[in-house]
């Protein structure tokens, strides 16, 4: 669905952000995009949505170069930015004005999600709190039924019950023909709803694996100080080490510790990636 090839981009001449970045995304998956501050997660989303153009290389969505900004391509991409301005109109008027850009827009679904999130549809969007506005845009994003949905830090600003509602709404949404790419630092908010992990670092995608492959390849364990197990990467924690270990076929699967995995990939990129080559 999405192919990024040899993407090169810089905001300033001598500070390249992307240096030949390659990435492929398939329909039916929800990808979590992780990276350190300044790694370029937001910029990558802006490239995929055609808001920025590559200096070299290309971003292709559904077979068309995004740079051409063809209406048929744009109607299949929705980007939920982290920072946004909404006009001084209510949710219903906003939906009426913007829905026509998306041929399969589902107004019923929009109402359902807004009810679930308890967003007031009659109030001007500018009068809503940041969290309420964000929830409105999440609802709008899902209702577009566009094939590619890009979300930049969607849970930022959401209160505790809303985060849970967000996960439920994502779990309930029909994802079979759609592709979600979610950038986030809030690992714990989202780790259960993603099924692929992508790590962006130093201008390239340095890791991309499905959650299933990660859990059958790596084991996440707490080791005691006298343990004879060899960790690929470990961090000191109370009473021992939190460790990533190469999983052998017979050992049982463990829950993925995304924070530990992320740190491991940043520190020991090659070693971790080698585990996936068989």
């Amino acid at each position, binding site marked *: 669905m999405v192919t990024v090839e040899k993407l090169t981009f810089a905001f300033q001449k001598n500070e390249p952000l992307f240096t030949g970045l390659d990435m492929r995304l398939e329909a039916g998956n*929800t990808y979590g995009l992780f990276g350190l501050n300044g790694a370029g997660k937001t910029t990558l989303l802006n490239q995929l949505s055609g808001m920025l153009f590559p200096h070299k290389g290309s971003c292709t969505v559904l077979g068309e170069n995004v740079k051409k900004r063809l209406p048929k391509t744009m109607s299949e991409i929705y980007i939920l930015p982290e920072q946004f301005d909404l006009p001084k109109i209510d949710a219903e008027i906003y939906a009426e004005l913007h829905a026509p850009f998306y041929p399969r827009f589902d107004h019923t679904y929009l109402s359902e999600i807004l009810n679930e999130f308890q967003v007031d549809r009659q109030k001007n969007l500018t009068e809503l709190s940041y969290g309420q506005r964000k929830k409105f845009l999440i609802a709008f994003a899902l209702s577009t039924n566009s094939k590619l949905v890009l979300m930049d830090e969607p849970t930022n600003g959401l209160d505790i019950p809303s985060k849970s509602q967000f996960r439920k709404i994502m*779990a*309930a949404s029909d994802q079979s023909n759609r592709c979600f790419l979610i950038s986030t630092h809030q690992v714990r908010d989202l780790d259960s*709803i993603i099924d692929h992990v992508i790590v962006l670092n130093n201008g390239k995608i340095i890791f991309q694996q499905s959650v*299933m492959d990660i859990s059958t390849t790596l084991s996440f364990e707490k080791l005691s100080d006298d*343990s004879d197990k060899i960790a690929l990467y470990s961090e000191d924690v109370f009473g*021992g080490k939190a460790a990533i270990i190469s999983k052998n076929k017979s050992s049982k699967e*463990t829950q993925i510790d995304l924070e530990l995995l992320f740190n491991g990939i940043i520190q020991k990129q090659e070693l971790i990636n080698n585990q996936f080559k068989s």
Partner: protein
Amino acid sequence: MDFTDKEPIYKQISDYFCQQILEKKWAPDDRVPSVREIAVQMEVNPNTAMRAFQLLQDEDILVNKRGIGHFIAEGAYQKTLDLQRREFIENDLPYFFQKMNLLGFSCNELEKIYKES
């Protein structure tokens, strides 16, 4: 003592199914909740929930009737019991035995406590 913190989510889901079967709340031919219902309840990606269903199908505990849903298979109780007993021996007992040794309990002592409780 090394230990694995948490079971993967799909395993928590399949364990829940197994428990329902062992407690005889679910019987053969009963329709179980859909992948989507489970995904929403657990707040997980449907693909993750699907793995739990796949696991139980591979163990012949669930059957998938295309277009209708997933059902408890014939003979699911015995198969679930075998599966869970095997997992209890492989996963739970080693930690239990380690702790037992650490605290200096003998099997006889434990048997006495077990009978009294």
